[in-house]
């Protein structure tokens, strides 16, 4: 009786501790979710997107099958791309090209290696620094970034509108020919994709880690695993080894004591292959 009471306490404590941790971080998730800007504007004040168009875009994305076609933030189907990671990479390379063209080059690839290195560093800072003002709910983008977003949006617009030159790509993605026929809805869809990529690359206020904890891996914008990520991974391996080692270790003393003590005849010891043999606490 004493014995089972101890087990109940153990179970109760484990459940309380586990659900407290789970509940705490569940709350933090909602508290620290990436903000949806009320307005996304260019430096000259032109409206690029707003809260409604981003949320409408989410519905358009759902209307194409949502997570059945590609994924957002890694969640969804595996055939088409992860739209957030795909957008992020296209926007980053487009921005490099825009800057290179401003310098008179044909594109980023035409620049010297030294100049490329400078632009890559410029890109990393441009993409990671938050230009979202929580007081006004406004996200302001530089002129070059607006151009990069426009070019990226043009690709997705063509993809979803059934442009003939992207037929092969749609085949690889297992997409309908004209997945979203309406141009306004396609525009909203690109606003949504832009916002999901923005959350992947923008650092949280007062932190050097993005809203998605530097996910996805994208060297262009400096997205790589955080220190906490690496250390917790090591910890998980060590804890797993501890968990594997614990049951035999906790059985060890009983093995030695039974071998040293004279055999006692009890109903317990003659039971063949008792299930409790594998239970570390019994």
């Amino acid at each position, binding site marked *: 009786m004493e014995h089972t009471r101890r087990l109940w306490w153990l179970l109760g404590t484990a459940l309380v501790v586990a659900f407290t941790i789970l509940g705490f971080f569940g709350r933090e998730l909602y508290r620290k979710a990436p903000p949806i800007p009320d307005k996304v504007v260019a430096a000259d004040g032109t409206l690029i997107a707003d809260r409604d168009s981003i949320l409408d875009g989410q519905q358009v994305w759902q209307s194409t099958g949502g997570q059945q076609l590609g994924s957002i933030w890694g969640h969804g189907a595996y055939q088409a791309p992860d739209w957030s*990671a795909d957008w992020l*990479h296209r926007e980053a390379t487009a921005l490099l090209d825009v800057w290179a063209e401003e310098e008179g080059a044909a594109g980023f690839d035409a620049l010297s290696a030294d100049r490329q290195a400078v632009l890559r560093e410029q890109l990393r800072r441009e993409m990671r620094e938050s230009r979202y003002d929580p007081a006004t709910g406004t996200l302001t983008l530089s002129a070059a970034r607006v151009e990069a977003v426009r070019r990226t949006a043009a690709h997705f617009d063509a993809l979803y509108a059934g442009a003939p030159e992207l037929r092969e790509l749609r085949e*690889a993605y297992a997409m309908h020919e004209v997945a979203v026929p309406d141009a306004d809805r396609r525009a909203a869809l690109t606003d949504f994709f832009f916002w999901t990529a923005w959350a992947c690359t923008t650092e949280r206020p007062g932190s050097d880690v993005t809203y998605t904890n530097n996910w*996805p891996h*994208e060297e262009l914008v400096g997205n790589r*695993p955080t220190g906490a990520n690496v250390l917790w991974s090591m910890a998980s391996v060590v804890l797993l080894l501890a968990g594997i080692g614990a049951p035999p270790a906790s059985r060890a003393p009983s093995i030695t004591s039974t071998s040293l003590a004279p055999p006692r005849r009890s109903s317990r010891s003659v039971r063949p292959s008792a299930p409790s043999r*594998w239970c570390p606490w019994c």
Partner: protein
Amino acid sequence: MLIGLEAFSTWRMQHAAPWMARYRWPVVFFVGVAFWNLVGAGLFGFLINPPLALYYMQGLNTTPVHAHTALFGVYGLLSLGLILMVARMLTGRTIWKERPLALSFWAMNIGLGMMVLFSLLPIGLAQGWASVEHGLWYARSADFLQLPLLQTLRWLRLVGDAVFLVGVGLFTWFFLGLWRGWSYETGTASAAEQRGAGSVLPSSATS
């Protein structure tokens, strides 16, 4: 693992009592559960779940490797074993023709293993490499996934799936036979006699 050893020792005990032999196949399915619990849920689960692995592998084919082997390997076989257990108790002292059941068990397990080893796992690992080396966008891009090698690996899934489906077919056929009568051994007089007895529960359960 420990549960698996427990199931295995139970399985060995089938020779201890004659009535245990009739429960051989339900128990074998439970041993299958223990195997996939270790491999599908344990190993493939740990492959993708530490934070660092998840960072690179989220949304790659390593996820269905774990998902299929854990969901069918553990819960699928577990429910089939339970169904067999119930069927065994409902069909009394009859003797089953166990050959289709044996083939079905091995076809499903080997088919699942082939599906994972020939197709999903190699694709997932190749994608994992691409993700670490170039970024997630590349691991999921058409440029990478339409490479001839990866196309071939994707189609290789058909082989394992076909073997698996043979297992599903045999299991269904065996079960239809329990209902229509062709899954019972009728050759021996004793078997027919036992069937004539019409007992619903195994005698050991009532004695």
